């Protein structure tokens, strides 16, 4: 499935629009006044169309998880706007958010931590349905359907989370997220805690569910290969900002930002011959701390292409590719 697929292309209004989103966590209290905060997310903008998957990639501390949490209002942004189906939900009171809640859901990295250990699978999956006032008989029917949909058996319904493997527990988390038939699911590292052979099961399941239900995903992960596989479009984050966004094959095959290029070249391929033949860009140093970001382009201290302007002027996201959808924040894009 690609972005050109008729099923995803008919509807042009974005399902989710994020404009100039920012999150500054307050700094610690100093002797006289509060110390400066940490800007975890800064000026992030993108849109998600119905039924598509936007991959959000980056290294630890890049702000991808914080962004994900703001999308579903698990965190309140300190700047910018999130709109769902054209409705601004950034400042909507949690009480008034309720009817909308059923339309966007979240899946977490640790399936066990996100499931109540004292509830049966039946109770866990039924909870969001009950919350929206579904009649008990309909709830039972729905839960059975959902369990079947995610590849679990009816006898699993009376069991507790600890009786399941990691992969099965993630299936329960997915069933719960889909219970209210949401239009958008934000999945934060949903497969990174799973064994390789199980990862493929869950990725395959999420792809099938998207085809069958038309749900859109924001898929947050550090694993670039998984993101390429599941996404239609990809946004690359570095130190709280999007440095490149575009159709996935464009971003992966012709990265415009030097960071994207370096990131892709650092991923080891499961192929010794290809590994030996590859040109690798080894970046120097670690990703800097968001508490003390470098001036100008925040990537400049590690960038092999950095010039004077990169130290002083922050580059904005602008179109660099053949299509308007492809943008990079670099003074010297490829």
């Amino acid at each position, binding site marked *: 499935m690609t972005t050109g697929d008729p099923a995803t292309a008919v509807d042009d209004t974005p399902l989710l629009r994020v404009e100039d989103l920012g999150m500054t966590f307050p700094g610690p209290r100093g002797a006289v006044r509060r110390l400066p905060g940490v800007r975890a997310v800064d000026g992030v903008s993108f849109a998600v169309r119905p039924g598509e998957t936007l991959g959000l990639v980056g*290294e630890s501390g890049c702000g991808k998880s914080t962004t994900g949490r703001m999308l579903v209002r698990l965190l309140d942004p300190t700047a910018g706007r999130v709109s769902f189906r054209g409705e601004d939900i950034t400042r909507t009171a949690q009480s008034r958010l309720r009817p909308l809640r059923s339309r966007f859901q979240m899946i977490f990295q640790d399936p066990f931590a996100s499931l109540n250990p004292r509830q049966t699978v039946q109770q866990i999956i039924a909870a969001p349905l009950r919350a929206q006032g579904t009649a008990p008989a309909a709830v039972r029917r729905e839960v059975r359907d959902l369990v079947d949909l995610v590849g679990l058996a009816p006898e699993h319904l009376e069991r507790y989370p600890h009786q399941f493997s990691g992969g099965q527990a993630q299936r329960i988390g997915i069933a719960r997220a889909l219970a209210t038939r949401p239009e958008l699911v934000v999945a934060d590292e949903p497969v990174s805690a799973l064994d390789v052979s199980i990862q493929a099961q869950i990725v395959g399941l999420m792809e099938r569910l998207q085809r069958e239900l038309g749900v859109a995903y924001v898929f947050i992960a550090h694993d670039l290969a998984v993101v390429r596989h599941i996404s239609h479009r990809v946004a690359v984050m570095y130190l709280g900002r999007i440095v490149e966004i575009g159709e996935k094959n464009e971003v992966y095959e012709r990265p415009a930002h030097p960071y994207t290029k370096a990131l892709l070249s650092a991923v080891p391929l499961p192929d010794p011959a*290809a590994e030996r033949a590859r040109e690798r860009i080894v970046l120097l140093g670690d990703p800097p701390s968001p508490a003390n970001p470098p001036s100008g382009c925040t990537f400049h201290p590690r960038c092999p292409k950095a010039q004077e302007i990169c130290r002083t002027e922050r580059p904005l996201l602008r179109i660099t590719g053949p299509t308007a959808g492809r943008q990079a924040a670099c003074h010297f894009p490829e």
Partner: protein
Amino acid sequence: MTLLQVTDLSVEFDTAEGVVRAVRGVDFTVERGRTLGIVGESGSGKSVTSLAVMGLHRGARIGGSVRFDGTELIGAPEETVRRLRGRRIAMVFQDALTALHPYFTIGDQIAEAYREHHGASRKAARKRAVDVLGDVGIPEPARRAGEYPHEFSGGMRQRAMIALALSCEPDLIIADEPTTALDVTVQAQVLDLLMRLQQDRGLGIVMITHDLGVIARVADDVLVMYGGSAAEQAPADRLFADPRHPYTRGLLDSLPRLDAGDATELRAIPGSPPSLLAPPAGCAFHPRCPVYARERNPLCTGDRPALRQVGDAHHNACVLDEVTP
């Protein structure tokens, strides 16, 4: 030249729920200047194997033989093993923060280890610590030696642990998921560092990981483990080009590829890795194996299969691999 020779290694634990046979009958060798990659999923026995080699499994029953440079380690006096450990065999773990002591500076920890094994003076040990920190690419090593582990970033801590491992000039490094907790750009730096050090010093390396990409980058030879046993063993090029065990093939097929365009659907392996408390009879992989699902061959559920030679330096435990040796 064979540095480490492991023969018929087995590790068993008694637990409240019964005996766990974490490793059964594993063989491998590590040569000087070469890297053996051990790959497997959770419960495959890959980490238990490395701990057993290091003699770090108290309370476990360990069988078989582990010969390091001619010296048998299984059943050897604790003093013999202790003298080799850290000095000639060093270990690098996934989590540097638990491997390094939080109360002592990085420099003190490295100097202390060096003094312990080489009986050097404080001053010489201190200088050695700064030197190895520089060797592993830590900037301003003299200053950083005076810092505590929590003052180091993840990548720098991992380097510091490698420096600690290298300080006593070991012949063999056992690295258990050394880059799993690191970001991919930092992982690339640490892997390059290990390979450079290997080239310079002729180190033997055992690289234990779940990441087939890391294996492809660093390993000369690969051992694939499943359910406590060896499934397949081959030189890295051969293993990736011609995987013969259905588990190895399944693992490679279930992996999304960074360099694949609009890829076909991933072919997942059904089911989950086996429980070590109640392992399946016969081949541990048979309940998930597509070949068994098709053929229902009774050989798959008989005895647990051992590795057989199926090609030049290529060994496979699958009983259905038809070879003319």
